[in-house]
Structures are given as C-alpha cells and as structure tokens.
C-alpha cells in the first residue's frame, strides 16, 4: 500500500530531514511512527501526500508512482488518503460541518449523503454539538477532532495521522485511538505519527522509529521505547 525506496529529503538547508528511508506498509496494517521532535515524521507523511517531492528515491502509494505522477492526477491520489495534519489545516471560513462535508464534496457525494454522513462522523469524535462552530470558536482539542473526522469521512483506504492526540486529554485520546483501530479493522491502512508513549506502549502495534531522519527501528508489536 505504501512503499518508500531509498527516500531522502533535504530541505533548502543542509541537514537532511529524511535519509535513505526504506519502508513498506501493506494493506490493512496499523503503524506507529515515533521519533523525537524534528526527526522527520511530518516530512514522511507529507511525502506520502505528495505535498512535495523527495530529493531522492521512489515512493509508491495505493499502487501509484507518486513521483512520476501527472500533476492533474494528484487530487485523485489524495482522495485515497485521509490525513490528520499536525496543525489541523481546517478551512477557517467553514464551520465544523462544512469542513468535514468538504472532503465529501470533493469526491462528488450528493447533498443528501453529506447531510446524512457528516453528523454521524462528527458524533464519532464527540463533536455533535459543535456542527455550526467555526474553527476559531473551537478549543484546540475540538479542532483536532474536526481534522480527524474530516480525514476518515470519505472512508479512504489509507489514513495518515500526524500527532492526532497532541491536544487531547488521555481519555479522549484513547477514544480516538479505539476509533482508529476500528477503522483499521475494516481494512484501512493506518499510519500514525505520535509522541504519546502511553498509547503506543499499550496498543502494541508495528512501530517505526526515526531519529534525525534515519529509520533506527522497525518493530512489530513494538513500544515507544525512548528512555527519558
């Protein structure tokens, strides 16, 4: 489902953000991406979304060659990927409802379907009474949950989540993780970048650990594993 071959990414600066990364994630897997701040987790996720291209290497997502893809095909790739962004990336001019609805409008869902599905999805993340709030009328955690709801609203085959519980209390975090696990069980490939040691340690899924852009560990049923 996701395959990276010798992928390196060097931003304008000198220090590389990713170095020779080789990773394969098969369909239906549940993967944690861990690593200290600045180790390249977000870069990894943004490469899969083709937000930019890697400096070297090949990337395949959902059977498509991300690097040699025609520009006009990129939106179709992205519709196969639900993504929770670290900074949420909500449309500030749209309400909670409209933000989630947008992901469905993009793939041409009918109004009726949207009116039906969006409140359902928002209920799953506990925002059923914030449908008409704009992002800046929401608390940090609420915004994060809108972003999560939008990511899986159109049931994409791949779900990427960048620090999806950074602004959530442990109870809500656990709820979200349970939700993501349930989504994973329906066949969705899930990849989560996180700092939440508690969750990683308790769930015992595959863990890929980055450090300064290098994959230093790739472990099935792994743990967060950094010592303080």
């Amino acid at each position, binding site marked *: 489902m996701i395959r990276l071959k010798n992928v390196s990414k060097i931003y304008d600066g000198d220090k590389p953000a990713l170095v020779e990364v080789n990773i394969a994630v098969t369909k239906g897997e549940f993967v944690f991406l861990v690593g200290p701040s600045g180790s390249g987790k977000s870069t990894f996720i943004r490469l899969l*979304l*083709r*937000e930019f291209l890697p400096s070297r290497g090949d990337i395949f997502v959902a059977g498509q060659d991300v690097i040699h893809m025609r*520009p*006009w095909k*990129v*939106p*179709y*790739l*992205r*519709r196969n*990927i639900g*993504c929770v*962004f670290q900074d949420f*990336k*909500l*449309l*500030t*001019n749209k309400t909670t409802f409209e933000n989630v609805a*947008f*992901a469905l*409008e*993009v*793939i*041409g869902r*009918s*109004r009726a379907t949207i009116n039906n599905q969006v409140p359902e999805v928002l209920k799953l993340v506990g925002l059923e009474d914030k449908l008409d709030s704009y992002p800046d009328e929401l608390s940090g955690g609420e915004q994060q949950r809108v972003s999560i709801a*939008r990511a899986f609203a159109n049931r994409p085959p791949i779900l990427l989540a960048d620090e999806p519980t950074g602004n959530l209390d442990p109870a809500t975090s656990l709820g979200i993780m349970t939700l993501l696990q349930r989504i994973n069980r329906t066949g969705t490939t899930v990849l989560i970048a996180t700092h939440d040691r508690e969750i990683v340690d308790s769930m015992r899924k595959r863990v890929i650990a980055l450090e300064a852009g290098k994959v230093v560990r790739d472990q099935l049923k792994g743990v967060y594993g950094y010592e303080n």
Partner: protein
Amino acid sequence: MKISAGYFTREAFSSFKKNIVQSIAAVTTVALCLVIVGIILLVMFVGGQVIRKIEDKVEIEIFMEGLDGPAQAATAGANPVNRWNQMEQLGNTIRSWPEVHKVDYISKEEALRKFKKDFSNSPLVVQQIEGNPLPASYRVGLNNPREVETIAKRIKDLPYIKELTLNPDENVKFGQDTVRKLFQVTRWISLAAVGFATLLIFVSLVLITNTIRLAIFARRKEIGIMRLVGASSWFIRWPFILEGMLEGLSGAVVAIFVLTSLWRTFFANLATGKVFAFLSFNFDQVTFVKLLLLLALSGAAIGAAGSFIALRRFLKI
C-alpha cells in the same frame, strides 16, 4: 464526476459573504473603474458629436459671376438662358453625388443683404455700392467633411464650371487653411481622447485584477488546504471564478446606477439646456443602454478573468 453547479454557486455566494471585506473592496474597485471608464466613453461620444457638428460647418462655396435667375441673366450677355440652365445643371449634378449632403443656392439678393448687414458699421461703404455687384453662389455641404478637398477638386473639373465661375481656382472655395487646421486639431483631440480612454481601460483592468489578486492571495492557505484534501483544480476554481463574476457584476450594477444618475442630471440636460443648445447633439437611449450592458458584461468578465488569473499560481501542484 457528479459535481453540481449548485454547489459552486452556493460556495461562491457564501464566500462572497464570508470574505465581505475583500468582496467590498473588489466591488468598489470595479464600480469606480467602470464609472470613470463610462464617463470617458460618454464624454467621448458627446464630444464626437460636437466635433462632427463643428466639422459639418465646413462647406464648399462656388461663386458664379453675375447670374441670378433667368430674368437678370439676360443682362450678363452671352446666352443667358443657356448659362442659367448650366447653373441649374451644375447644382443638380453636385446634389446627385452620394458624398454630398446638401447644396444651397445663395442668390445675388441674399448675398447683398448679408453684405449690408456685415457692413452696418461702415455706412459709407454701403452707400457706395450701386446695384448688386455680388455674385450668386452655391454652398455645398458634405456627408464627410474630410472629403472636402477631393470634392472641391471634382467640382473644379466639372463641365461649364469655367463659364460659370470664370476662374474656378479662385471661385470654388472651402477655406482651405482653416479647414486643414480644424481637421488637424479635431483629429488630434480624438486621438488624445482615444488614447486616454485606452489608458484608463488598461489601468482599470490592472487595478481590478490587482484587487482580486490580493483577495485571493490572502486566501492562499485556504486554497492549499483544499488541494491537500484532494480537490481538483477546477473544483477549487469554479467558486472563485463565480465569486469574481459576482463581484464584477455587483460593481457594474453600482457603476450603472451611478452613470444613470449622472446621465439624468447632467448629460441629458446638455441636449435640451441652453449652453449647448446650438450644438443640439442627440444621444439616443439605445446607445446608452448598450453602453450599460457592455459595462455589466465587462464587469462580470473582468471579475471572472481576474480570479482565474490570480488563481493560477496557487493551483500549481
């Protein structure tokens, strides 16, 4: 794809409302630019008519020695009836040319009356005039005054003209120097007006697209997010284009309202008012309505095009 026009329209209207500051800025810009351009076009139209009126005063005069109707013709010697006929024929020939708008006959009596009026300050001159030494003449008005030289030349080459005027070069006149100067001046003014109008239209285009570009630039993050969520270029573009059209159209409507008021209180009075009554230009409603429709259409088109252009750089993947 099942993308409905309904969604785009809804999006465009709601975005127009939600980004009201930018919308108002765009609408104001379009409105003000179109008002200015509209005024310039109106002034050019009116001015054009005034210039035409002035140019229409250009006439060719043909002075004919000692001839004024069959009766007096007898005194002029030669074959008076024949010359009278020649004169009639000359008038008819000229009148038959398509370039000629009218041919007026000024009899010797009329010429004398005018002479006496002109010299009312010098009674001694008038006293000295015996009988009627002034010649009769034709005044030839042209459809296109700019053809005056050609037509004058053609008249000079007509048959009988030598007999009637004795010296065509002297007696077929059109105030050559003044006319040339007049046409130079009017052409220069027209050119300057067209140049200025073109400049204004160009400036308006730049200012309007500038404003729309700024408005869209401020929303580049929004566009980036839409991209990341998988929206195709056209899916993003349509609402923006419709919003641009809406802004352009709203601006045009405001401009039309302002221009109509201006027209009612100002230009319309010109035609009937005293100041320019002597020019008595007419400006039919149809032309005005056409102008307004043109403005509305341009407004919408500029708005849409402005959005389209401004979006380009943000829609690159």
